[in-house]
Structure formats: C-alpha cells, structure tokens
C-alpha cells in the first residue's frame, strides 16, 4: 500500500512538472498561468509574460525595469511630478512604509482586476493624504476638500501636471473659450522616403523592374490609386515598398513601412493598436477589446493598412473614416454631428482648408515637433509634447532658422489617460485652458463629443488667480 502511495505521488509530481514545464517553455497559450486578468492597459499583452516579467529570477527591480522600459520616455516627456528619484532619500523611509513610491506596482498592481480603477490605480484614491495632509491647513481654498478628489476632480495629476500647475493656470486665465481654429502643420516627409529611394537606386533594383512593370499591367486600378498618392509625389514606386531583402513582398506590412516611417511605426507599436505586434503576438482585433465596435469590424486585424489603405494611403480617410469604421462607442458615434465633426464636414465640402478640419487624429494623434537635438530613443525621434504644432508655430520656428521636423504621434493612447494630458498639446490649440479643464472633466460632454458647453466648472484657475492677487 505504501509503495502504491509513493508511485502515485511521484507520478502526480512528474505529471505536474511536465504540464507546467510545457506551459512555461513550449505552449503558445499560457493563460492557465495567469493569476488574474490584467488591467485595461495591459490585457492585450497579458499572455506575453516576458514583456513585464523580464527575468524569472530577481525581485521588484525586474518588474520596475519593465515598467520604465515602456513608460519611462512618456513620463519624462510629461515632466513627471513624482519621479522615483524624489523618493529614494532615506528621509522618506517612514512614508515608503505606507506606499513605496519608488515602485510603479505599489500603486499600479497588475492582475488585480477587481481593485483596479481609472488609470490602473489599485490603491485607495486618497493616496495624496500620506504626504500632503497639511494642504488644508496651509491653503484656505483646499480646506475640507476630500483627499480622494485631488486627482479625480480635474485639478491635479500624480504624474503629469503640465497644464495644471499654479503658474500655468494664472498665466492662461481669462482667455476666450474659443479662438480661431488652428491650421495643422503638414508632417515632414524629407527623410521618410530616403530608404525607399536608395532601394530604387540600388543595383539589385534592376531585376525587379520587369516584375514591377508586369504587376502594374495586371492591376491598373492599383496604379491609378498610387498615381494619386503621396508616395507617387515623393517618387516611392512599387519597388520602394514591395522589395525587401532581395525578395518581392506581395503584401507589405509594418516591416516595410518602418524602413521609411520610423517615427510613426515606433509610436504605433506603443499604442493600443500596435502593442501586440510589438511583443511578437498576433495583431490586435477589435473583438479582443471590451470597447464598443461595429460588429463587422470585429475580426479586423490591426496594421498600418487598416487605417492607411494600401496604394492610395489617403491620410484624410485615415484621420477619421478609418477610426469610425471600427469604433462604435458613444463618443465616436456622436462625432459626425458634433462641432468638431461639422468642421471636418465643411473641410470635406471644400468650405474651409483641410488642415482646419478637427478629425479624430487631430486630438488623438497630434502633430508634434520632432526634437532635432533631443535623444533618439528606441528608433524614434524624441517629440516635444508641449503643444501640437500648427502652421503659425511652424512658420515662427522656421523663421528663427531652426531645422524643424513635424511628426505624427501614432500612439493614440499617449494623451488619452488621464485626459488632462490632452489639454496643452491639443485642446489649447483652439480653446482656453479654463474651457479645456471644464470640458475634459465633464463625462457627458465627452460622451456626446463636446456638443455643447461644460455643465460644471472646475475652480482651480479661480483659486490660483485669487491667491496670485493677494
């Protein structure tokens, strides 16, 4: 009997070892290893375990490095108000016992869906109290304010306060709610096609000319689309995209696009549309998300061509039609009838220039200044997220002799959460700071795509100007 028990125990142990060994090292579907559903920020890549668990050995530093690896640049760009380095001094030891602010996962614990709230925060919302409990005593306007309202009422943000700090509020007080519609600057193209043109001029290109000509004869419609495209204008022909590593690529994808469009593809891979591709998983499909999409778009695998239809590469279509072909949430469905949507319709009707249309991309994929002297990180130029670049700003910078390049931020999530991140680079291109703060704090107004005026007023500018006058 004893021997049977031993045999059963050893067999069971071996079976479990084989099962978990297979799951760990061989299985494509590692879902049985998940200890809980990941947050809205990471659910797409929750089965690419090594994206965050960089090493099987090591403590919290391993995870911390993974956080910084993906989010570090964005935090730096946001002038992070609470960087890790502010907490490493031992004088903070007692505070760190309550919340270890040196580690991202202290506030953003993963796989804890039941306690994960907005912004992926997993600590109680009154976390500001632990360090700033004296604010009510020192500032009359803040007396008796609940601490859970600090970061949830449109006044403060733990990381990004570029549009919310006191001096900025005072400087931009008393502005009209709406200025003239800003004309977006054209994205730069000078260096985009250098790689494609080099390919065209290479000795190997000659052998593909006959293939290219034959393909053109087979597909006159495609040729017509290409003739009207920006690629044709820049001299990027069939070989520029369809030849890669000395082979004809029938359906060029991200690999081919990124040879010329490094900035766009690098930032695309950081956003919700491309993050699965970035970690080696299959492309994202709308059916994998919990957001609302049109049923017929459920299986649409996301890639460059999902929004930029191949050969025509129509950026007008990509700027809103492509978005609305998948997204069917309240905000998206309300867009065509909204003031922003109507501006786009007027531009489509030829009643105003196209660069004065306010499309989905105007707000969610802003045009930014690529810093010439900034660091080039992960293959993409460092972008100035201070303000969206418009024609007037571009003219001013160009006149000062600066070598200016304009890029399109393709990480549509970068300024989305918390939405105050959108105030400076986007909203304030046309609106006042006060209107922007109020509008972004009004959930109903966001749902109806800003059709109307905010129903509530955030008092932060009033308080700041009052204190400045004293």
């Amino acid at each position, binding site marked *: 009997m004893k021997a049977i028990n031993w045999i059963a125990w050893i067999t069971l142990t071996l079976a479990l070892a084989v099962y978990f060994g297979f799951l760990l090292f061989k299985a494509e579907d590692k879902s049985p290893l998940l200890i809980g559903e990941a947050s809205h920020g990471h659910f797409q890549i929750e089965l690419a375990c090594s994206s965050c668990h960089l090493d099987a050995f090591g403590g919290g530093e391993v995870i911390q490095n993974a956080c910084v690896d993906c989010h570090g640049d964005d935090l730096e760009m946001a002038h992070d108000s609470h960087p890790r380095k502010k907490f490493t*001094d*031992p*004088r903070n030891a*007692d505070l*760190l016992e309550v919340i270890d602010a040196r580690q991202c996962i202290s506030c953003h614990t993963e796989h804890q869906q039941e306690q994960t709230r907005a912004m992926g925060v997993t600590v109680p919302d009154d976390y500001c109290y632990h360090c700033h409990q004296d604010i009510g005593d020192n500032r009359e306007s803040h007396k008796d304010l609940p601490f859970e309202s600090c970061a949830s009422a449109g006044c403060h943000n733990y990381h990004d306060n*570029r549009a919310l700090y006191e001096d*900025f509020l005072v400087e931009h007080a008393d502005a009209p709610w709406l200025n003239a519609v800003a004309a977006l600057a054209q994205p730069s193209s000078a260096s985009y096609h250098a790689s494609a043109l080099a390919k065209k001029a290479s000795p190997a290109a000659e052998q593909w000319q006959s293939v290219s000509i034959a393909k053109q004869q087979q597909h006159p419609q495609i040729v017509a689309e290409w003739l009207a495209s920006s690629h044709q204008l820049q001299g990027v022909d069939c070989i520029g995209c369809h030849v890669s590593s000395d082979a004809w690529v029938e359906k060029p994808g991200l690999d081919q696009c990124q040879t010329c469009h490094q900035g766009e593809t690098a930032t695309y891979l950081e956003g919700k549309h491309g993050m699965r591709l970035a970690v080696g998983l299959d492309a994202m499909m709308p059916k994998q998300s919990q957001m609302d999409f049109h049923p017929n778009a459920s299986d649409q695998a996301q890639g460059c061509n999902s929004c930029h239809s191949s050969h025509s590469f129509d950026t007008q279509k990509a700027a809103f039609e492509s978005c609305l072909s998948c997204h069917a949430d309240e905000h998206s469905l309300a867009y065509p009838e909204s003031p922003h949507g109507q501006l786009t319709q007027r531009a489509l009707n030829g009643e105003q220039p196209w660069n004065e249309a306010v499309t989905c991309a105007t707000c969610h994929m802003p045009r930014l200044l690529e810093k010439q002297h900034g660091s080039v990180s992960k293959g993409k130029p460092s972008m100035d997220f201070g303000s969206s670049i418009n024609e007037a700003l571009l003219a001013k910078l160009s006149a000062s002799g600066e070598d200016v390049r304009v890029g399109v931020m393709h990480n549509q999530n970068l300024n989305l959460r918390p939405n105050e991140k959108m105030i400076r680079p986007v909203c304030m291109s046309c609106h006042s700071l006060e209107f922007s703060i109020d509008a972004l704090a009004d959930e109903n107004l966001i749902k109806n795509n800003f059709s109307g005026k905010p129903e509530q007023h955030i008092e932060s500018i009033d308080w700041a100007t009052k*204190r400045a006058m004293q």
Partner: protein
Amino acid sequence: MKKRVMTAAIAALTLGMTGCGEPESKGIDPKIYTDSLFAVMKADRTNYTKLVVKRLGPAGADVIKPAEHWKDLDNGTLLPAQMFRAGAEAVAEMTDDFTYSLQSIWPINSQNAPKTPMEKEGLEYIGANPGENFYGEETLGDTTYFTAVYPDVAVSDACTVCHNEHKDSPKTDFQLGEIMGGVVIRVPL
C-alpha cells in the same frame, strides 16, 4: 622531535601569513567624508548662483530665465535650489553610499521642511550657532546613518529676493549672508 618540528612549522607559517596580510583598513572618518562632500556642493552651488544665474539671468546679461517651471520657457534654466536638488537626484541614481538634500525651517515647498527629529535638531542648531555644523547618528527604516547638517547661506541677492517675494515663503525678510536653510548629508553606517 617530530612534534617540535611540526609546531615550529605551524608557527613559521602563521608568522609568514601574518606578514603577507594587508594592513588593517581604517577607512575615512564619516565627518571628513561629509565635510569634503559639502565643500564640493557649496562651491558648485555658489558658482552656479553667482556665475550663471546672477551673471546671465535677469539681473545680468538677461539671456537665461531661471524659473521654477524652466522646462516651459525658451532659455529657461533651473533655480539654484532646483539645480542643487537635480544634483542630489542624479547622485541618488548613481550611488547609495551617501544622500543629500536641501532643507529649511522656512521652506517654499513644505516637502523640504525638516522631517526627522535629527533634521529638526540639526537645522535649529546651525541656525542658533552661526559658523558651526551639526553631526549626529539616526536610524531611519532599518539603517543607521551618520547625519551631518551644514548651513546654507544666502550668497547672492538672487537668493534673498526670490525667497522674500515668493507667495509660499514663510519668511520674507532674509538678508544677504543669513542662514536660509541647511544641507543634510547622510552616510549609511
């Protein structure tokens, strides 16, 4: 005889090994260590205030703009206190052999007020005893530190004017040469 030879051999080996050993390392006195660190900090801080901010800022050539939110300004640059803290934060990313911070009993940002009992004692001591430093030991978390507090003196009217006019400053009558706060240096023991 055999036993005697063995004893002599062991004694010789022991003596030989002792002779090969390194002299016992005494290490640097924590006070000399922190005094030296402070000398470098003070020199850099004074030079930045006088040779950069005062000379090139609004009171001088007016080609740079020292401001709290300097990142938002063309030609913006760090205020002297921010420059000092930026140095402390950069050092913290390189080593944990020592840390330092700039604090005051009259801070513009309340986060820079003394927190630990020894910081309070040290800042009060240097305020009451001009020209003297403060040294002590304290335990924070599970580590004991040698803690030194040095006076931070207003070396330029750029310091006094800014603090006296700032809306969050608890003290508005600082004079040139007056102690405005203290530099706290900690070395884990």
